[in-house]
Structures are given as structure tokens and as C-alpha cells.
């Protein structure tokens, strides 16, 4: 293993995060605060509790998941697309690094940034509502696994994007709607039966549900199903990246 190479990519990416720390943290903090104002105060005054949990507290895991998903994707996709755009990727391709090591460096950094942002959001949420974490280890397990999985997904977008606008299409058109419709701000039990069944087709629902269980021991689907879903997406992303990278498709002409 080229550990120095992995470390170089990781530090290089984290350095970019440090340089833009204010923008990186300000945006999710402001967004989270706005969600609390809109959903927590305005709507929350009408929905007092879901599954015995105060509405403001109930939406915290969903909001964290929304941020983790979008940040993991955007961090990883930008991180890999940027050297493609500036052509500095030549150096990574010419270095004694395997595709696994390259992915580890980029995805590790993107997931780390998301984890930091996720933790900042938990702290921010504490200013607005009481946040209880019944299973901290399980919470970290979901947080880390989701960050890595969606950073991998972002890496794929970074490999395929033809321009900066291409980086935004999937997060805006697919991920954000899936998170909103995946029970971030409600329990699917509140929906009519037909829409409950439709919601079960949404993979993000399982992530949010499992994550919420680690906080309050309430969930829309079983913990095992949630865990298997995230692992399936993770393995799918790994297989896809390994195949694409090994062929040099989109990278090596």
C-alpha cells in the first residue's frame, strides 16, 4: 500500500476544506437553523409529537442525513472533478497508486468533511431542541457508513461529470427529493397507505429510519433492513468504481 500517497491526497483535500472552512460550515449551519425555524417552530407548533418524540427533536436525524448525503456527494464529486478540470489529474494517474488507494484518499477526505459537518449540525441542533442519542455507537456507525457510501457515489459523479453543472444535477434532481420524501421531516406512518408503500421504494428512507433509531429508538422500518440497505448501496458503489477505474473509462482516454 502506498500510504504516503493516500495521506498526500487526504491532506491535500482536507487543506482545501480548511481554506474554505467558513463557507463549508456556514452554509449547513444556516440551512439547519432555517429548517428549525420553518419546520420546528412554524410546523412543529401544529405537530407536537411523532412516536412520542417532540417534533423539533424528531426531525434532527433527518436533517443531519440530508446534510450528510448532500455534503458527501458534493465534496467527493468536486474533489475528483476538479483535478480532471484543471488537468492536474495527470500526476495522480502517473503516481504509483492503485485505484483503491486513489479512491481511499478522495473518499476518506470527503467522508471526513461530512462527518465534521454532521457533528457541527448536532451541536447546532442542540441550540434549538433537546437532542437525545440513545445509541451513540450505532449513530456513529450510520453516520460513518452513510458518509463513506455517498462520498463513493459523489466520486462516481466526479468521474462522469462533463462540467461543473453536471456535479449538481444528481444531488438536486435525485438526492434532495429522495431525502425530503424519505421521512426526514415526518414518519411514513402519517402518510396514506398507498404512499407508505411508494415510500418503501425510496432507499433513503431506510437510512433515515436506521439513523433515527440510534437517536430515539423509533423507526419506520427495521434496523436490519436499514443496515442492509446502506451496505448494499456501499457495495454497489465499490463494484462500480472498481470496474470503471480498472478500465480507465472517463479518466485515461
Amino acid at each position, binding site marked *: 500500500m502506498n500510504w504516503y500517497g493516500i495521506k498526500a491526497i487526504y491532506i491535500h483535500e482536507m487543506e482545501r476544506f480548511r481554506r474554505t472552512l467558513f463557507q463549508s460550515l456556514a452554509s449547513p449551519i444556516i440551512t439547519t437553523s432555517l429548517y428549525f425555524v420553518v419546520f420546528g417552530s412554524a410546523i412543529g407548533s401544529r405537530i407536537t409529537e411523532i412516536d412520542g418524540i417532540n417534533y423539533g427533536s424528531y426531525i434532527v436525524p433527518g436533517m443531519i442525513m440530508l446534510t450528510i448525503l448532500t455534503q458527501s456527494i458534493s465534496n467527493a464529486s468536486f474533489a475528483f472533478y476538479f483535478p480532471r478540470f*484543471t488537468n492536474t489529474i495527470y500526476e495522480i494517474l502517473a*503516481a504509483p497508486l492503485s485505484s483503491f488507494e486513489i479512491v481511499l484518499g478522495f473518499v476518506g477526505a470527503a467522508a471526513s468533511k461530512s462527518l465534521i459537518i454532521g457533528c457541527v449540525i448536532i451541536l447546532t441542533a442542540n441550540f434549538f431542541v433537546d437532542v437525545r442519542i440513545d445509541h451513540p455507537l450505532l449513530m456513529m456507525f450510520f453516520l460513518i457508513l452513510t458518509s463513506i457510501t455517498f462520498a463513493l457515489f459523489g466520486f462516481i459523479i466526479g468521474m462522469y461529470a462533463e462540467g461543473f453543472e453536471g456535479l449538481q444535477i444528481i444531488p438536486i434532481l435525485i438526492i434532495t427529493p429522495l431525502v425530503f420524501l424519505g421521512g426526514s421531516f415526518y414518519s411514513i406512518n402519517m402518510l396514506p397507505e398507498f404512499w407508505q408503500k411508494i415510500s418503501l421504494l425510496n432507499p433513503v428512507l431506510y437510512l433515515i429510519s436506521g439513523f433515527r433509531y440510534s437517536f430515539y429508538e423509533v423507526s419506520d422500518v427495521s434496523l436490519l433492513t436499514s443496515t442492509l440497505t446502506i451496505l448494499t448501496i456501499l457495495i454497489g458503489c465499490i463494484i462500480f468504481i472498481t470496474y470503471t477505474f480498472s478500465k480507465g473509462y472517463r479518466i485515461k482516454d
Partner: protein
Amino acid sequence: MKNILEINNVTKFYKNSVKALENINLDIKEGEIFALLGPNGAGKSTLINSICGIVNFNTGTIKINNMDIIKNYRNTRKITGIVPQELNLESFETVWNNVNYSRGLFGKKLDHNYIEKLLKQLSLWDKKDNKIKELSGGMKRRVLIAKALSHQPKLLFLDEPTASVDVELRKDMWDVVKKLNKDGVTIILTTHYIEEAEELSDRVAVINDGKIILVDDKDKLIKKLGEKTIKIELVEPIEKINGNLSKYNFTLDQTNKIISHTYNLNSNTTDITELLNDVKKDGYKIKDINTEQSSLEEIFIKLIQENNNELVRN
């Protein structure tokens, strides 16, 4: 001297079925400076990028230090450095971070002493904390060289190292290249500037339309394909070339005072002593003698034209 690089039957097609390299065979000796000459789109950069792992090639084998570059990519890439043609750098990073990053990528532990020495050698030390965007084009080119040398490679590829740099900086770069070679680095450079190949290289290859059409020692190439012209300025003008000089195919210029004879360096058909004796025998008085040798550039143009004509015929 042993070969540090061996390329055997390498062919590369791009996705649109354009053949970029066709059956390339080339050996590079350890310690030499090798120049790869060719017009735009000839395949120079594609060949270098194939060797360095930046693009995939379709068939053939490439070995560095007798190790296959695909099977043993870690070991071969560790000793290889590349300076790309374009100024591909991260504008918002400092010189120091950029160069240390490259060293890390190539699997080497941070060594601030070495990087300091390298930056000083390339006159970049006082710019180490500057962001790349603050540097001139020439300085950026030096940063690229520093990055390529950050992991102490044995084989260095310079893809058009002096493209779009001024004459002064070009000479500086040549000094850097010569110094690196003196320190034991084998250098392969692609260039449009024949003067550069002439100044730096030990051997030259000419590539055209994805095929290597010639590989030879630079001096031998000049000697083999080069022509020399002897120009004799006479004291008195003459009307016509006749007598003993008529056998030499002399031409007379407009002033009727300078006679010129062009001969091939390799042909041994012209005996200069005999030629000068014949001038004397015919009673001409010589004011001045001048000789001109064809440059690598003229040889290069001749080769490419011949090759293109052959391609058209086929």
C-alpha cells in the same frame, strides 16, 4: 550502457478509432538525453503519457528498468517523473504544498531538506510560500519540474519543456536539464524546437503520424542526412563557371563573385583540398571561404516531407 526504457510494438487507438501510435519500438539508454521530434499531433505526448500510465495503450509492452509498466506499475512509476506540456497546477496552493504533495503521491516520506534543496536549485525558494496563481509562466514551468523531481526519479519525461517561454528562460531550462542529466537522470524530451534537441540531446527520434520514422545519434544524424555548402568569394567577378570547376556543380550568385557548392557530409565525393587546388589552377583569386552546415531543423523538415509524401503515395 543498459536500457532504462524498452518499448515494443506499442499501438494506441483513441475511442474514435484514430490511431495515435502505430507499432512503436524504441530503447532508451540509461543516462542519455533523448529527444523526440515531431509535428503537432504526431503522437509525442501520447507516447509519453502511455509510458507514464496517464493513458492506456492497446497493444505491445513497455518496460522500465526491465520491469513491465503494467504488472510492476508501483516500482516503475516510483522512478519516473513527468513534466506535462500544459501548465497544469492548482492555482490556489502554495509552491511548497504543491511540491510536497507530489512527493507524497509518489510514495515518499516528507523530506523538507531535499525539497528545500530542490527549490533552491530551481530558483524557487523565495517563492515557496507564493500561491501558484501569483507566479509567472516561467516560474510555473519550474514548479512543474520541481514536482516531477520531488520523488527523485531516475527517468524524467519533459513534454515540450520550453513551450511558450522566452529565450532567456529557455536557456535557463537547458542548464537545468543538463545539470539533472549530469546528476544521473535519464531524460526524454519532446520538442518542437530543433535547436533544443540539437543543444541537449544525445540521440534523436523523429515521429510522424504515430510512427517512428528514424532513431539515431544526433551527430550521426546530422552527418548522415546533413548537407554542407562551401561558398567561395572571389576577388574578381566571373562570367561563367568553366574549366576544372565545372565538374563540381558550382552555382554563381547574382554578384558573379560567390560560387557555391553543396555536398553531402556522408558521401565522400567532394575532396575539399582538390576543389581548392582546382580553383587555384583555374586562376581565380579567393577573397573569402565560408561553409554552412544544414541544421537538425532542415533535416527534420526534409524527413517529415519525405514521410508525408510516402504516406500520400501509399
